[in-house]
Every structure is written in C-alpha cells, then in structure tokens.
C-alpha cells in the first residue's frame, strides 16, 4: 500500500490537503468505524464529520475542505480505477457539507467500499517500485489539526495566511479575537483578498499601510466591493480629495466599514452642532478621521461639558475644535481635571485657554510638575500683558531639556530633583 509513509519526496503543495491515498484511508477507516465513538479516531489527515465543538476560538476549516475536495476529485479522474473513485469522491463531497449527521453518512459510504477494499489491498504493495513521476504524484496528507486555538498550525499551508504575513498583518493579535481566525482561513486569496487589496491601492493607500489596516479591521476583506466603492464615491462627492480619502482610510481602518448613511449622519452632525463651514468640517475630519468612526454620544457629552461645566462660549469651542479636534474625543474626567488645574490653581483665564487649546490635550502630571517647578522658581507668570510671560503652548509642548534651559533657566537635574520633592 503506497500509503503516506512511503512517499519518497517532500512535496510543496500549496494548500492541497487531500490526496488519493488519504481518500483511500478514509474508506478503510470509515469501514472500521463501528460505533459512533470511534469517528474521532479517523486519521489526522481527514477533517471529518466531527461534531466540532463551537468554542469561539476554534477554527473550522470545513468549507475549505469542500473546495479541496473538488481538486482531489479532478486529480482522481486520472487514476486507473476512475469510476469507483469518482463515486467515492462525490460521496465524500456530499459528506463534508452537513456536519449534523456524520455517522449515518459514514455508514452509507462503507457499504460501497467493502467490495473494493480487498482489491485495492492487493494492487499496491509497499515494496513495489514506481517511477519518479508517480512518486512525485503521491501527496502526503498535511499534518494539520482539525481545530486549533492558533493560526500558527495553518499558516505554512494556507496561501491566504502566508500572503497576509508577507503583507505585515499581525496574525497573533487577530487570532485572539473570536471568529476572526476562522474567517481568515476560509478566505481565498485570489477571489476574496486580492480584489480588495487592489481596491485599496486604487484609492491611493500605500503598500506599507495595508498590513496595519487589515490588522485593525480584518472584516474589510469580507466587505462587499460595491459598498466600498459607494462609500468612497460619497466621500469624494463631499469634496474630499483623493489623497485626503487615502490618508483617512490609512489612519482609520474602520472608515469604509460604515454605511453611507452613517457617514452622512456624522458629517451632518459635526457641521450643525459646531456650526462650522463645510471646508472647516472637512478639515477636522481629514485630520482626525476617527471622528467619523466612533459613536456620537461621547462627543455630545464632551460638548455639553465644555459649554456648561467649563463655561466656554460657542465661538470659543468652535475655535478650540478647529485647532485641536482631539478635544471632541478626549476623556471627560481628564478634560475637567486639566481645566480645573489650569483655571483654579494656575489662574489662567478662559480666553488664554482658548488661544492655546493644545494645553487641554496634555498629560495632567506633566502640566503639574512643570507649573510647580516654575512656581518654586517664581517664574510662573502666564499673563501676556505682564513681563517675563510664559506661553501655555511652550509650557506643555517643549521637551524637558528645552523647557529647563529656556523657560525655567535651570538644569535638567534640578528638575528631576525637584520632582522628588513633590
């Protein structure tokens, strides 16, 4: 029997999982499958009729088996015993699709097989010499587990996964998410993945960003191409230039997964709530495309906080948002904490904060350390009308060394020593 163990060469089969020998294996094993329990003992080369338990991390490759079965069935037609194998392969194909009634199907096949068994056993002996082509023609069933928690076991054999790794997709992050691993395995590179990657390239996304986009939004590979095109057309109709659209898609991978209606809703919201002109709205959305992706509730809350709790006027909020759009998606607690420190402890009035909105974007600890250091050196003076004025944006944006030498006129070591006294 020229079973898998007698293969002479290691063959590099891209994704071809089944071979004639493995189908033969199936025949024998199926026959021996007397009781329901032993269906699990069928060799690893065959991903059979297990009732695959549905823990979300298990990767099911049933569908892929179907297409590989078609390949094997084509391969089998060149065999000598064509007819019988055709029957077998056809029944195999049917068998794999329903997962529910495994054992009855197995039994039905076994009846066909019993008569062929002995003939087959006599035909091929392990010591028979075969030609090189025939030897090369034997393919070994791949040693892949039927279900696994990790994509590591499948990546060498699956073309899609190999190409994704070459693109730079972080498979280790994706396999932790439920169902994503199974979905990626089921994709076919040429029919599913390649057209969407070409589409992204056509919009203008760089090659280096493709990996990042797929890592964060793998479902873009199953999105309908017409929908994607419709959304891009919509953005272009709102007068976003192609380069802007490309940069927005690169930085917000989920952008194209939202329907046209939702994108429209959001753009409308920003324009009306903030009473901005169309070009300003376009500007802030282009700089922070995340605004179109997330939910609007936190943004509404932030706007209310700015108006009521922090006491900014509408035009001040408008100015701040145009300068630093991140204020809209900032954490409410952190925003109020920084504002409280600025206004009540550092005694900075509203109009100065409006002038330098990036100060609302900084880390609270950084602001506090620097302010206390300047206060200790008696240099904390934030009023532009008085002498030795220190502007807020320089206070927070300068790196430590420049801050010490230019603003505080002290050494970096002094600053670190001072921090230990806080």
């Amino acid at each position: 029997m020229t079973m898998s163990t007698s293969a002479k060469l290691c063959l590099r089969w891209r994704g071809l999982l089944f071979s004639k020998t493995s189908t033969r294996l199936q025949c024998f094993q199926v026959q021996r499958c007397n009781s329901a329990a032993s269906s699990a003992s069928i060799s690893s080369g065959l991903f059979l009729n297990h009732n695959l338990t549905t823990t979300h991390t298990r990767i099911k490759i049933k569908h892929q088996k179907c297409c590989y079965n078609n390949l094997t069935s084509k391969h089998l037609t060149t065999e000598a015993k064509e007819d019988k194998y055709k029957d077998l392969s056809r029944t195999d194909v049917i068998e794999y699709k329903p997962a529910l009634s495994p054992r009855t199907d197995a039994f039905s096949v076994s009846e066909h097989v019993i008569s062929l068994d002995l003939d087959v056993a006599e035909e091929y002996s392990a010591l028979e010499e075969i030609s090189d082509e025939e030897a090369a023609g034997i393919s070994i069933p791949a040693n892949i587990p039927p279900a696994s928690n990790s994509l590591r076991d499948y990546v060498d054999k699956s073309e899609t996964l190999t190409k994704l790794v070459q693109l730079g997709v972080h498979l280790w992050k994706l396999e932790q998410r439920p169902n994503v691993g199974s979905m990626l395995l089921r994709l076919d590179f040429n029919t599913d993945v390649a057209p969407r990657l070409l589409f992204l390239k056509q919009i203008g996304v760089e090659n280096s960003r493709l990996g990042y986009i797929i890592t964060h939004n793998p479902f873009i590979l199953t999105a309908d191409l017409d929908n994607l095109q419709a959304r891009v057309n919509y953005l272009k109709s709102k007068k976003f230039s192609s380069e802007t659209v490309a940069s927005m898609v690169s930085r917000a991978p989920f952008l194209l997964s939202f329907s046209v209606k939702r994108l429209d809703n959001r753009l409308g919201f920003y324009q009306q709530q903030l009473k901005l002109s169309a070009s300003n709205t376009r500007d802030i959305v282009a700089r922070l495309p995340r605004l179109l992706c997330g939910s609007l509730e936190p943004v509404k809350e932030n706007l209310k906080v700015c108006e009521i709790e922090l006491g900014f006027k509408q035009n001040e909020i408008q100015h701040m948002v145009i300068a630093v759009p991140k204020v809209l998606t900032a954490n409410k607690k952190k925003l109020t904490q920084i504002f409280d420190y600025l206004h009540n402890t550092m005694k900075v009035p509203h109009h100065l904060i409006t002038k330098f909105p990036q100060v609302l974007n900084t880390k609270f600890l950084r602001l506090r350390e620097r302010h206390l250091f300047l206060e200790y050196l008696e240099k904390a003076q934030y009023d532009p009308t008085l002498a030795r004025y220190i502007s807020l944006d320089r206070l927070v944006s300068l790196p430590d060394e420049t801050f010490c030498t230019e603003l505080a006129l002290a050494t970096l070591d002094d600053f670190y020593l001072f921090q230990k006294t806080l």
Partner: protein
Amino acid sequence: MRACANTQGVFCVYKPADVHWKLVRDTIETNLLKGVNATHPQPVPREVRFLVSSSDEPGAAKGLRVSPAAVPVLSKHPLVTGPEFQQIKVGVGHRLDTSSSGVLVLAVGNGNKTLNDLYNTRITRDYTLECEFGMATHDFSHTGRVLERSTYDHISEDKLERVTAMLEGANQKALRMYSTVDMGSQEAYEMAAKGLLGPDGKSAPILTGLRCIHFQPPKFTLEVQCLNETQKYLRKVVHEIGLELRSTAVCKGVRRTRDGLFTLQDALTRHHWSAADVMEAIYKYHSSKRNQKKILFPIRESTLETSGSRLTGTHQNKDAAAG
C-alpha cells in the same frame, strides 16, 4: 523564559501623587517588555522544501526536476507567534495609597523572592508629612469634607515639640510591649541596648521616631520613622496632634523618603521608567549588595531571616546615630 541577570532584581521608583500604585507597576512592566522584546529578535528558522517541476519541453529528459528551496517557516514568524515575552513578573513592596507620593520598591523576576523576605522583616520607613493647622476633615487630608475649623494662634513650636515627644514616648512603650521578649530579663536589656526590640510580623503601627522639622503656623512639617504603618494611620496621627494642641490639623501630603535601604537618591522619576534605566538601577542594587556583604557584621539573632537581619542591624544603628 530565559532570564538575563540585569532583569532580575530589586529597584525603587518615585511614585507621583494621585497615581494608583498599580498603574506605576503596569507602566514599568510594559516598558520592560518593550525593552526585552526589542533586544531579542529571533531570526525566522528556514526549512528546505523541494519544488517539483515536470519538464514540458519537447526533447528534454523525461524525468522530474526537483529543486530545493530554503523557505522560512512562517509558523515561527514573529507576526504569527507574537512577541517572545508577553509577561514579566513585577512585584510591589510596601504599597503607597493614591494620594501619597514617594519611594516605592519594585522587584522583577527572581527579585520577588528577595522582596518577600524584605517585606517580612522589621525594617522601618521614613516619611515626611506636610500638615496644616486650622481644619479637621473626615479623612484627615486637605481634600476631605471639612468637619471643624479652629484657631491656632496659641500654638507655639515649644508646645508642638512637647506633644511630639509625648507621642514618641508612647510609641516606644508600644514597641517594647509588642516585642516577644520578657521585659524583666537580661536578654531584653541587651537587645534594647542594640536596638533590636520590636514586633515580629504584623502588629499595630508603631512610630519609632517623630519630630518636627519645620514650623510656620499654620503650616508645619513632621518627619516620621515607622513600622507596619499605613498612610491613613499617619494622617490620623497628624489629626491627633492637632487635637492634643487644642486645635485641629490636617495632612496635606504624605511623602515616603526611605523604604528600608532604598532612599530618594536611588528612586527613578517618571522620566526614567524606560527599560534601560530600570536595568541600570537593578545593576546598581546588585553591586551595592556585593559591597555590603563585605562590610556588615554578623548578628546573633537567629529568628530573623539573614538578609533582613543585616538590613535591620545597619538600620537601627543609623537610627540610633541620628537620634
């Protein structure tokens, strides 16, 4: 997990105020992971596979051409397996609550065992308490709900010193009471002379030293050396001092300046929490430990654990010297 010598050890950081200690520990762990993963890039192993190509040209030899190719094994590729190290054990010594700041001892990897020993031994900690007269709040700190206001003009430095001396005396008495030796014995006298009396394991918080270092009403600063304390207890002590002086006081800031042998000088500030700085601090700790082993004298006391006893020995001596 392969362990390098420079990522196993004990070091201390300066915890800023209003930051939960767990956040500090998590930040250090993340930074260490970043550093360690970056310095250990493993090359992807390659395996040899054979490409079979049948010759289709007419007239060519009718055999199969098999060509070998070295192909990287993608199942070992970093994008498929993830980073090599995904967790590092970072342990925390005596914790500091959110509103306090100061020296926080952390240990990495094998250093956690040393940390455990340190935690169980009798080593004192040094605090600086910034306090203010005139207010009493429900949680004894200046951000709490104000319960009472009072005047403090009658308080002089002299009165404050009298109160602190009284408290120190009461605490010394408690120290003697909690130690497991019979007070009337010769052994007790000898231990007291060497400064080895004290509670073993858990006990009520004891202040081994308390004095006022700065007095400017309404503000004053206290320096405390204590055992088995919590920061809330220290604030309560401040409140009680206020009560003893027929006024009220709150604690504005608790700052730990020393934890065992780790002082402010060795503590790493927020800007030095990268992997390289942490490894340097661990290296310094190892080298200082090596130097100390040559200097320290052996102690007769056998119940204390070895490393801890050396620390207590030197520390109590320092305390006695400082007064």
